[in-house]
């Protein structure tokens, strides 16, 4: 059976280095599918390929039954596939609200409008505020995004993906660089998102992964070496050797 997202034989090389090496996996609607793997395993590269930031060498990516392998990043977002970045990528000079409103703008009508001030479009602002409220940034709406704390920036990353009205979120290490408290906020947020969204979650924090995920796939040197329930993957000898063992 194939899921909401269905990846077949996906490959990507940088020169002689095979970073994505024949990956197959499916993401069922409504699940949190975690992808774990050691540093340099190719997790971010895979997210780049799924989101359209990088062209795949071969293989197919289907989303909601449609082949999206050759679509641009922008076109995939319009289909309902949005991503966040491991290294925070926001519009630093914009306010938090304008960040989210810009994401809403991308999906609501033409942006070839030249005379009405965008900041006063309540349709955009209301949807933006809803996304900000969902991640707990409503209070920060009028601050400059570049002035947010690191944890708040990570929340904004997710708010931007939400504001695109995506069905499936590809989250690349949402906890990256966060402290314990900031991380707890984000884990609670993802648990809440599960009610409304399908999530592909890349994460190093094993506690977070095993608390949140329905399915875990382990990626090592560009190959998926195991995929299944958290308990099954945790028990997998190959995974233990390649990854969990390292963690101690």
């Amino acid at each position, binding site marked *: 059976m194939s899921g909401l997202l269905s990846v077949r034989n996906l490959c990507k090389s940088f020169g002689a280095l095979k970073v994505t090496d024949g990956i197959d996996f499916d993401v069922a609607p409504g699940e949190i599918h975690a992808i774990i793997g050691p540093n340099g395993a190719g997790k971010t590269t895979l997210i780049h390929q799924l989101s359209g930031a990088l062209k795949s060498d071969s293989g197919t990516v289907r989303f909601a039954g449609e082949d999206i392998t050759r679509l641009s*990043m*922008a076109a995939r977002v319009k289909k309902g596939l949005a991503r966040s970045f491991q290294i925070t990528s926001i519009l630093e000079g914009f306010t938090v609200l304008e960040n989210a409103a*810009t994401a809403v703008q991308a999906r609501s009508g033409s942006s070839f409008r030249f005379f*009405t001030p965008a900041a006063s479009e309540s349709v955009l602002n209301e949807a933006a505020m809803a996304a900000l409220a969902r991640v707990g940034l409503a209070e920060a709406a009028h601050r400059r995004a570049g002035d947010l704390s690191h944890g708040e920036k990570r929340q904004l990353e997710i708010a931007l993906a939400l504001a695109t009205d995506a069905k499936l979120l590809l989250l690349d290490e949402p906890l990256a660089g966060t402290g314990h408290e900031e991380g707890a906020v984000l884990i609670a947020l993802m648990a809440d998102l599960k009610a409304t969204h399908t999530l592909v979650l890349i994460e190093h924090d094993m506690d977070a992964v095993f608390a949140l995920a329905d399915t875990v796939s382990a990626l090592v040197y560009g190959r998926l070496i195991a995929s299944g329930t958290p308990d099954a993957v945790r028990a997998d000898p190959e995974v233990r050797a390649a990854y969990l063992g390292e963690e101690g």
Partner: protein
Amino acid sequence: MKDTDTAPAGARTPRLAGRGALIGALVLFAIFAVLPFAAHAAGDPFFIVTATRIIVFAIAALSLDLILGYGAIVSFGHAAFMGIGAYSVAILATHGIGDVLVQALVAVLASALFALVTGAISLRTKGVYFIMITLAFGQMAYFFMVSLSAYGGDDGLTLYDRSTLFGAPLLDGDIGLYYAALAVLVGAFFLLRAVVASRFGRVLRGTRDNRVRMQAIGFSPYPYQLTAYVLAGAIAGLAGVLLANQTEFVSPAYMTWQRSGELIVMVVLGGMGTLTGAIAGAVGFLMLEEILSSLWVHWHIVFGALLVLIVLYTRGGLAGLAGRVFGGRRR
């Protein structure tokens, strides 16, 4: 020293935001409006000629600020659009078409078309390549006019009559031309001010801040940047129409890369991405040039050094400086 400015380290270029920039522009416009009277009273009626030239370049700098300041598109061929506008006037005039509306329409269409074709190609490249390609297209336009002997070639083309409006010689007097240029400047300012705050402007500003992020929320920046490039080219073409009338002469020299560089300096000097700064930059640049050149033959040396100092020490150009001097209120 008091450094009450609580702007964080990230906000490196203090911008005269919203209201401050508007007030600054209104003050400049008010000064421009009474300038002919002041010049007359001061017994220097010829100052109006210099002032017209300043306004013409302010219009071009304003248009460059749309792409450079709001789009981070570093075009090194912007003078070509002014040249195309100026040649539209002179070439039409040699064929007996002197009406300014027809000339302006042709100038806008020709410069917009040139911007569309060259922008469509150059915006596919990035960074230094983009700068080099815009420079190359600018030089191409320059050499094309040099080789076009039917219209003066290297020697340029003299405009025997200034443009008319429905047959009326409204621009013949220096005052008439001055106020016509001022009207275009004010119009361009308010047009661009609306544009940068619009949905379109937001996409442009967002792409300047973080192109990949804009793609990740569903935008393809290319058509927006190209549109901005065409709009900027068209406005610079309009500035060229005024320039031809002011100098009553058109030559390929209007299109050189040095001219394009001067326009960039004006925008950077005034403060990028403020619109008001572009106007202030044109005033500052041309006044400085005027004053220094009257003082010393080797004024270029001092001029260059002064520009470097101003840009280095005013952070965000003249607009940034004004923002810090008058910016009791933050942002």
